[in-house]
């Protein structure tokens, strides 16, 4: 799975959890500052991403995933 496929899959989760349009979930965006996603929604996104991509995203790693690009790279490395 290439990074663009991961981004698309992640964007679908973000849309379902937080109601952000898929096209707005681009790699340069900050989850908190740009997409207005709160910490509990981040947990919901992480849990769904774990199921979808077969990765583990513990809470301490989740705290380091500031941007969509951080999350895509983490999933690409660990999936």
């Amino acid at each position, binding site marked *: 799975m290439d990074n663009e496929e991961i981004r698309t899959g992640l964007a679908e989760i973000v849309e379902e959890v937080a109601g952000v349009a898929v096209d707005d979930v681009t790699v340069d965006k900050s989850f908190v500052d740009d997409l207005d996603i709160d*910490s*509990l929604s*981040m*947990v*919901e996104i*992480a849990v769904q991403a774990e199921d979808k991509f077969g990765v583990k995203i513990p809470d301490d790693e989740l705290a380091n995933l500031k941007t969509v690009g951080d999350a895509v790279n983490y999933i690409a490395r660990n999936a």
Partner: protein
Amino acid sequence: MSERPKLIGRTGPAGTRLLGFGSAQGNRVVTNDDIAASGVDTNDEWIRQRVGIIERRLADPDQSLVDMAVEAGSKALADSGVSPEEIDTVLVATCTMPGNIPNAAAQTADRIGVRSPAAFDLNAACAGFPYSLTVASDLIRGGSANKVLVIGAERFTDWVDWQDRANCIIFADGAGACVVGGSDEQLIAPAVLGSSGDLVDMIGLTPAGHIFQEGQSVFRWATTQIAPIAERAVEAAGIKLSDIDVLVPHQANLRIVEHIGKRLRAKGAREDMVVADDITHSGNTSSASIPMAIDHMRAAGRIASGDVMLLVGFGAGLSYSGQVAVCP
């Protein structure tokens, strides 16, 4: 040497059922704006979005945990049409009594007018109500009790740091109670009870004696582990998720409650299943939240006698519990 004397045993009725409910709340209505006005860095929109609470009820300074337990218990007896003399066991689920000695149950029973009952407290934190209902039901089925008054009662006011914005917005004070009696038919199903003591550090007290929780970790645990426990409880009752009329999760956080409802609907629960949302106006009252929510929903006509209820408790310990019971 003389022969050992033979001891006799006892058994009770084949089944148990809920006879009625009652509840009591802190006398003070505290809005989100009230908390913000007290100097805590928070606001109404933030609180509603994160935890779904619009207002909570806190006890007056002279309104004790036992006061609320007495009020809820008395109302449950009246609702059940059972007199205090008929009660032989009083069980209080609580984790916020001011000290370990004395317990809440004996004095609560005395003030309600129940004479010389078996009386004890049970601490499984926010999972306490289904634990207590199971103990009550099995005491009756085992012949050790005839009618049991079960009360969940909490006074978090004493255990909250009122400047800790993560927790002071959540917790509240109140009590919920029910009466359990024998029945030809089993109307309180076997429970799924359990714990994860390896996760003990996720919810506890600070050295100063104030409650704290690892918010994200608790949220992840509750949104991933609790729906499967609810499914196991339905299985233990020998019914299907589509048979459930009312879902009553512990009122921890509206987002957790809604998440559990969503997960169960994806697994076959009905779209018209009522999901308790009592936290919006009552706050999180730990072991009191499930019976209080049931009492409020019955009073509002949202649920009716004969409805099949799925109760799910989860909290510090970590402890969890799931159980199906029929609404009286």
